[in-house]
């Protein structure tokens, strides 16, 4: 698809190097350190008390908070997929791709946040419907909710590369939803 009249295929090419995962949230490091030493951050490495992630990230850098929220969303969806696959073994193979995507996304996010930030997440209990069709329908709704949540977080992200990462995760979730709908 290279232009015949101008040089290169810059119109569709993408040559920008993917930003290091560690640098995505580098801006948060300073804030985390400051907050931790000031004793006002929750779940910081200098504080033994563990608290829910949603509260823990409240005082941290905005993008660290966004990352932690994304991890919580993803872990909740991952738990829903796992529970659905365990309850309905016939669906397990169909859910493998969804589960792999969630795990890859969580791994990328956990790798992105500064050391010491609690990304364990707190998934709520997920009740799987008795009938497979209903279970799949409920799971689709859960995945749609995850997608919408990721889009919302991408909108909140201050770092452009991090917004792109979250947008990519949302798009990947849409692809999986497309597969679940078939």
């Amino acid at each position, binding site marked *: *698809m*290279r*232009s*015949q*009249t*101008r040089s290169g*295929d*810059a*119109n*569709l*090419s*993408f040559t*920008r190097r*993917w930003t290091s995962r560690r640098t995505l949230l580098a801006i948060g490091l300073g804030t985390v350190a400051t907050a931790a030493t000031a004793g006002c951050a929750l779940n910081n490495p200098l504080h033994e008390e563990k608290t829910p992630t949603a509260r823990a990230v409240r005082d941290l850098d905005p993008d660290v908070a966004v990352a932690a929220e994304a991890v919580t969303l993803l872990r909740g969806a991952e738990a829903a997929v796992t529970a659905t696959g365990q309850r309905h073994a016939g669906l397990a193979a169909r859910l493998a*791709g969804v589960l*792999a*995507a969630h795990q*890859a*996304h969580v791994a*990328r996010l956990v790798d992105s946040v500064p050391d010491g930030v609690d990304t364990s997440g707190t998934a709520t209990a997920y009740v799987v419907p008795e009938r497979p069709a209903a279970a799949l329908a409920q799971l689709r709704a859960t995945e749609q909710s995850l*997608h919408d949540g990721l*889009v919302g977080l*991408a*909108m909140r992200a201050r770092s*452009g*590369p991090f*917004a*792109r*990462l979250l*947008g*990519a*995760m*949302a*798009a*990947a979730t*849409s*692809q*999986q939803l*497309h*597969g679940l709908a078939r």
Partner: protein
Amino acid sequence: MTPVEAQQAALAGEHAAVYLFGVLGAQASQSRQPALYARLLDAFHVHRRRRDQLSVAIAAAGAEPVAAEVSYDLPALGTPAELNDAALQVERRIARTYGQLVESTAGAERRWALVALDDSAVRQLEFRGTPEMFPGTA
């Protein structure tokens, strides 16, 4: 990359996509490959709409929207499989362009880019693409 530069890159990509999907649609047979034809036609309409929306947004920002090239290099287009492959390639490239747009914008522009990225990622599956872990980033 500034927001307008990213929009210009996306517009250039959409110019190419509109051109290519026009050619791909012309190569497909509506009677013999109705499903493929319908997908190509739908993609053509979507990309034309996005091209127009980007042109308006860039002009509203006070810049001159980039023009389309006179023509674009075409891949081999002899079979339905080759038409599918070419369409998939276009969608993958445009998804990366929208990934860049997400990265370079904020607010309404970013939301628009997120929708476009999402749509392109799903459209890849319609052209026999497989789900990716991070569409629009590689």
